[in-house]
């Protein structure tokens, strides 16, 4: 998908909560770097990291948690909302459900716009787009006076049925912009039906965009000052990259920036290894993200952050609260639990020497799988005695054996993650046997083979630098522009011919998307069309790629997708087109997908192979070696260490280094 980078120097940088990861293509080789994040000003870690290494990239692709953190900490802009009369509390009421079914005192986060800054206009559009009550511009002017008097710095406008007829909404937005207000209009942000979800998405955009804009212009200036000639781009939630201008305007489309980088990176690593269908498995310190890619990146539109629904497309990532720092405990009923509470980075697992809660990481230390002297390439020493003390506190139900307890902790954590993998595969009608598991993140390669065995996945791929794969994905990401339009277009079961209205909408969206990319300097692109379809009467849609607007093609596409997902389809029923989507994709410069990062600096030091006793199903003599030194295939049991992760190769599995730099792990005796 991406052109070879040639001599252009490129940087992928993923700003996480704990670490900022760098992957740098200097025109000939890939280099990696990792440093602590600077949450007070996330850009500082980026600039300082570049200065530390003396790197001066021509282009930077950036994964940012700024919009997510702004939402979670409720530190966004002072916003106001204008909506249809009768609906200003929609943001409070939501879908009227409480977040927990069983709680003595259920709570819900307050909306990001308080009661006093939500305003109503006496106008109304009906479901068919006709105007029930016309817009009175004098009233609009009076309401905008009040908006300005409230000292709002950003305005969200969301009127009922604006996805069918946006005239009123556009006029209000225009009048507000004439007064110098920064406006997010729902017909621009996310023109789809369901007023709460559209309003929430629009409000989130208004709320985070100013912070995002300020952050990006500061970062851009800093990069220039440091000698980097920037084309700065930002990772979108659904796996492409976008310009600074677009990210500042459509900030809501960056909320899943980091995980999107991981999914794209996993896909690039799999493709380089000749694998088309994969499940990405990203396990870090506090949580695990999994995503299924049946030959393409799946997207979803039912995401939420901090209780606020966000309907813009994101990579279809499913998250579970299971990571290396997950704390193990016995519950009142006597069952062993692992997570969702996490010891995080501070105090961290007991083996880090600061906390005393038993974690999944401690279980691996007790079993001899994480090597105290080879952790993070030897940069950090683990306290094995502290790990054992912590795990032993739970050993009553396990014959007072710390080893058996540690095995049990790993088993329960695996069950939690297997459940997540089942949700994204089996529950959607996919057979895991048709997929490869691409494992990354600091802890992914510790669990990959166990999970593959549990789900019947035949092969595991470990990318070259599993600890910075999100940054690698950012380097590989194409430049993308999405455009979508909600509608309710009914197609009767026996109708033939073409849907002219749909064709016209696709054509308009495509022209918009191409123009947007052209403005950002990408004249050539290819365009994908898809639509959200459902059978008439259903209220959940399936996103289906569409090559043609012929009625027969639309019907066939829905029938195939519905059958694949739910096992049946009702071809005799009318269907509805609910959203038309286009995605314009332009190539960007990227390093060759097969390049593996060359270690530089202290991490280049190789550690000598050794043999030690490690507990698998039982204690076994196990070879421990440096992954970088592996030239031929090797049979388990073995442990491969590298700077950013530890790879477990259980008995019965075989690992083979590939030309692409990834490691392929399969069951012994199978190919």
């Amino acid at each position, binding site marked *: 998908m991406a052109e070879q980078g040639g001599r252009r120097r490129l940087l992928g940088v993923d700003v996480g909560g704990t670490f900022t990861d760098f992957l740098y293509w200097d025109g000939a080789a890939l280099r990696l770097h990792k440093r602590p994040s600077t949450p007070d000003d996330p850009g500082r870690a980026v600039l300082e990291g570049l200065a530390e290494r003396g790197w001066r990239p021509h282009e930077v692709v950036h994964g940012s948690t700024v919009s997510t953190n702004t939402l979670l900490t409720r530190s966004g802009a002072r916003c106001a909302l204008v909506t249809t009369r009768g609906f200003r509390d929609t943001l409070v009421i939501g879908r009227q459900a409480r977040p927990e079914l069983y709680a003595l005192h259920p709570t819900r986060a307050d909306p990001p716009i308080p009661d006093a800054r939500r305003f109503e206009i006496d106008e109304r559009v009906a479901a068919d787009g006709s105007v029930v009550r016309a817009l009175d511009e004098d009233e609009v002017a009076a309401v905008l006076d009040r908006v300005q008097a409230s000292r709002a710095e950003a305005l969200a406008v969301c009127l009922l049925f604006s996805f069918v007829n946006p005239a009123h909404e556009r006029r209000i937005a225009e009048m507000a912009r004439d007064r110098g207000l920064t406006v997010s209009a729902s017909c621009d942000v996310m023109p789809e039906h369901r007023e709460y979800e559209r309003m929430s998405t629009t409000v989130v955009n208004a709320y985070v965009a100013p912070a995002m804009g300020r952050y990006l212009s500061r970062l851009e200036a800093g990069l220039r000052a440091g000698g980097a000639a920037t084309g700065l781009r930002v990772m979108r939630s659904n796996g492409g990259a976008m310009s600074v201008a677009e990210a500042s305007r459509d900030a809501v489309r960056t909320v899943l920036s980091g995980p999107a980088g991981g999914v794209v990176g996993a896909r690039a690593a799999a493709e380089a290894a000749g694998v088309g269908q994969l499940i990405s498995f990203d396990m870090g310190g506090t949580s695990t993200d999994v995503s299924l890619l049946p030959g393409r990146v799946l997207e979803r539109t039912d995401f939420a952050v901090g209780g606020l629904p966000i309907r813009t497309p994101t990579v279809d990532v499913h998250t579970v609260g299971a990571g290396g720092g997950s704390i193990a405990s016995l519950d009142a009923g006597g069952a*062993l639990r692992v997570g969702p509470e996490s010891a995080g980075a501070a105090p961290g697992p007991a083996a880090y020497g600061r906390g005393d809660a038993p974690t999944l990481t401690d279980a691996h230390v007790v079993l001899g799988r994480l090597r105290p002297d080879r952790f993070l390439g030897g940069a950090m020493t683990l306290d094995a005695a502290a790990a054992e003390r912590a795990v032993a506190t739970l050993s009553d139900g396990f014959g007072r054996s710390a080893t058996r307890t540690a095995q049990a902790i790993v088993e329960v954590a695996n069950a939690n993650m297997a459940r997540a993998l089942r949700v994204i595969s089996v529950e959607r009608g996919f057979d895991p046997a048709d997929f490869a598991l691409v494992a990354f993140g600091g802890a992914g390669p510790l669990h990959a083979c166990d999970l593959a065995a549990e789900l019947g996945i035949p092969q595991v791929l470990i990318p070259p630098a599993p600890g910075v794969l999100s940054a690698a994905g950012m380097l590989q990401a194409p430049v993308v522009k999405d455009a979508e339009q909600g509608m309710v277009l009914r197609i009767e079961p026996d109708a033939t011919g073409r849907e002219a209205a749909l064709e016209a909408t696709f054509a308009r969206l495509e022209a918009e998307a191409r123009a947007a990319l052209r403005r950002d300097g990408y004249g050539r692109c290819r365009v994908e069309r898809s639509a959200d379809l459902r059978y008439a009467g259903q209220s959940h849609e399936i996103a289906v790629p569409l090559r043609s607007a012929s009625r027969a093609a639309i019907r066939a596409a829905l029938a195939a997708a519905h059958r694949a997902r739910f096992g049946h389809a009702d071809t005799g029923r009318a269907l509805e087109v609910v959203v038309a989507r286009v995605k314009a994709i332009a190539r960007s410069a990227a390093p060759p997908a097969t390049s593996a990062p060359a270690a530089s600096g202290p991490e280049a030091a190789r550690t000598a192979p050794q043999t030690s006793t490690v507990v698998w199903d039982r204690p076994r003599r196990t070879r421990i070696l440096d992954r970088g030194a592996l030239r031929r295939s090797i049979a388990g049991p073995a442990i491969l260490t590298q700077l950013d992760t530890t790879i477990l190769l259980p008995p019965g599995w075989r690992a083979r280094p590939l030309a692409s730099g990834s490691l392929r792990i399969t069951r012994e005796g199978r190919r």
Partner: protein
Amino acid sequence: MPSRSTTAGAIDPARLAVFESLAASIAEEMGATLRHTALSPNIKERADYSCAVFDAGGRLLAQAAHIPVHLGAMPESVRAVAELAPWSPGDVAILNDPFRGGTHLPDVTMVSPVFRPGRGGRRALVGYVSSRAHQADIGGMAPGSMPVAQELVQEGFIIPPVRLYRAGALVPETLALFLRNVRTPAERQGDIDAQVAAQRVGERRLAALAERFGAAGFRRAAAALLDSGERAALAGMAAIPPGAYNFEDALDDDGASDEPVPIRLRLTTSARGWDLDFTGSAGQRPGSINAVAAVTRSASYYVLRCLLPPEAPTNAGLFRPLRFTLPERSVVNAAPPVAVAAGNVETSQRIVDVVWGAIAQALPDRMPAASSGTMNNLAAGGIDPRTDEPWAYYETSGGGLGGGPDGPGLRAAHSHMTNTLNTPAEALEIAYPLRVLENSVRRGSGGAGRQRGGDGLVRRTQFLAPATVTLIGERRRRGPWGAAGGADGRAGRNRLERAGRRDRALPGKTTFQVEAGDVVRMETPGGGGWG
């Protein structure tokens, strides 16, 4: 420590956790299938359904948490279909009879036996899977099948336990009889198909689980899971001072007369469990507020579940330490032929209030005040002038939650026995000849106190064509009670707005006709204040 844990210790805490996770994921997967394939907004948008997994003895092993009112009722369904044995693999039973495994008629339940291959080609029963979904219309005297009725037979089509599938093949007579007795057969057919799809997923997954653990291993794991539930319940109960606590509350009326309907409870708690004695509660009534015993149990289970930590498993073991004394033919233990539609949605909320109030006497520093105490049901239907097709719509609305020691009550949300979503105005207006004019917070309706009760809702719905409308709501006479000195929340009220006329007050429970342009205004109760 539990008295019946003969098999405890036979499996270790990790195997127990793995089994629990696998059983729960079966129920969740069934739920995902049902929701994604169903036709009616009530199931898809509002998620008004539950799925559950049982062992061969009909004991609940896991339930996907959606609707608490289904908690105690799903096991009754499995018990009720026992009369259809012997089973063949591929059988699916269907029922909605509230007196034989159901709750109220719109809740249509399916139960499938699940087998694993045994010795010599014989198959061994390993358990059951069950799904229950609130279908938007099941016939009867009013669209939406939630009428103000006086007999069960008026409320809709009654399905005793019968086979819908026999050995994997549809029993067409069962389906034909059902579809001929409902207002929107195409939609019902779609929902039935979706429920069957969920059953099939559950059957496959439970068979695979049994295969994986082996016959004996599965039984051992199931027994250990139930024991762990019991231990979790007893651990929660141990935090409550032992003693006997009395509480009484009342429903406004039964819809047939103005007389209040009292519910009384004497709750005796000890380290060994709860005795819940409802003696003194009203006898069953002509109106539809009668609750079947399963509903009373569900409401009590719900309160216990709220007192336990979030990770506690939901299974039959959790409910072992509860013992019930339910007077015969009473509002908390109804017998044929009375109507029961509101017993499920309204009386269940009042039973929660009574159990909640009794516990609040034991734990005054922990329990919040009463929440809205009603589901504010609106059912409507008629002929859609856009298509000339019949339509039927059902919606419940939230209210204010009680303030409590931890803070003010949540506003405009569903409480206690339901957590269904609202239908978006834009989805509703596309589907039905309706227009939502207002959906707002009813400011000032929460009860005063150190921690205020949450405010209720104001919802104004305009009818664009003539329709038959049923309202079933509670707390229309007296608002939800405050606690620890807090004031009551404001009572709810219903009004009919008609162009050119004065607004007309509507009773809490009523069926009436509307003309095109009429507006029904519903104001839901605020929560009680605390302190």
